């Protein structure tokens, strides 16, 4: 353990989803172009400072998306990828789906934030399919997002409700993308996926040894 590199705060309680969102928002550089996946990742937008200059992309064809639309601002022609009515900001641009996914796949987004069922030590992501035999497969833009952005951040709880780790040595759920995750933000710790292995950046409550005892993979610090 190297206390210079890993911030362990045993006084801190595990983070709630809004805390994780705030943490991610803090790590998004000024002016970055960012896609926030459907679900919890959209909370990150609430924590970006007004002067962050961060430009949000939504894969259904808009750059510089604004907050969710309220009241009279609701326009059925203007939604995000989750089909929630949103707004546009000055300097927005609309484009069609082939152009939007070209932008994603071409590596032009700086950061994409995604939810996950599992992330492996190699950065494999599983977030689209439970693999249950009766599940109807539905992928949407998950695979495009996973492989396209310069950096892929995952936002998830570290364990399922029944205590099963979601950061694993190898995914058991069907994959969304191979070796595509760069960083994992969880309620208990933040991890970097590196060529050397999984590195703990920061913990919230547990020590690195606590975490290592509950996860089935080696942790670097």
């Amino acid at each position, binding site marked *: 353990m190297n206390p210079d590199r890993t911030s362990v705060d045993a006084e801190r309680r595990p983070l709630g989803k809004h805390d994780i969102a705030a943490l991610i928002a803090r790590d998004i550089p000024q002016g970055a172009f960012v896609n926030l996946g459907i679900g919890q990742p959209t909370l990150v937008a609430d924590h970006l400072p007004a002067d962050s200059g961060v430009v949000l992309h939504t894969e*259904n064809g808009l750059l510089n998306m604004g907050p969710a639309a309220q009241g009279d601002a609701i326009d059925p022609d203007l939604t995000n990828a989750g089909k929630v009515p949103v707004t546009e900001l000055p300097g927005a641009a609309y484009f069609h789906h082939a152009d939007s996914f070209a932008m994603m796949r071409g590596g032009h987004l700086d950061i994409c934030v995604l939810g996950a069922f599992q992330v492996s030590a190699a950065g494999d992501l599983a977030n689209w399919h439970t693999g249950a035999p009766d599940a109807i497969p539905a992928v949407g*833009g998950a695979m495009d997002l996973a492989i396209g952005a310069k950096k892929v951040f995952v936002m998830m709880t570290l364990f399922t409700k029944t205590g099963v780790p979601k950061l694993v040595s190898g995914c058991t759920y069907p994959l969304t993308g191979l070796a595509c995750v760069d960083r994992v933000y969880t309620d208990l710790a933040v991890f970097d996926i590196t060529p050397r292995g999984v590195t703990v950046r920061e913990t919230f409550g547990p020590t690195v040894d606590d975490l290592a005892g509950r996860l089935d993979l080696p942790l670097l610090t």
Partner: protein
Amino acid sequence: MTVRLCAHADEAVAGIQDGSTVLVGGFGMAGMPVELIDGLIRQGAKDLTVVSNNAGNGDSGLAALLAKGRVRKVICSFPRQADSYVFDGLYRAGDIELEVVPQGSLAERMRAAGAGIGAFFCPTGAGTLLAEGKETRVIDGRTHVLEYPIRGDVALIGAHRADRMGNLVYRKTARNFGPVMATAATTVIAQVREVVDTGMIDPESVVTPSIYVDRVLQEASA
């Protein structure tokens, strides 16, 4: 050739053949050509392959077409939604085929059809279930999947405004799949909110040039 301005949805969808592949625009309700889909339900073509981002919601539109047993196969990225019970039921009963395609590959495969590209190597989905059985190749150290064009016999799309030549503009995120589908089908039928005189759309702002559009229906509700 010259676009046909249609007075009624039944005229707009006339002649769609049994067994056709029909590209249907829209992402959720944004850009969904509801009057054209209703026209297709009345028109009666069956044994259809429908290519659309979703597989219908609730009981109307695409879901109604599915409920009537007129669709043999759906090619889409996201069939499963809170109220996609019509599709869910057909699928679980084995009464409909499903091909799930990543959303960007769905768009790009239609673009390829419209752009005369025979096939393309795409990194999306490499190493996943959706690439099983597909040819792959490592290019610059990265595994790519060979994807083939998706062509439509017919495209039904929703746009905002047309001129009398058939140039189209869209509105906000309702643009989505419309412009790509317009390039990828033999017969392109657009439902629009208004038709304006030729010359009233700025040539710099046209999204779908007239060459791609065969028939235009002005919405009855507009």
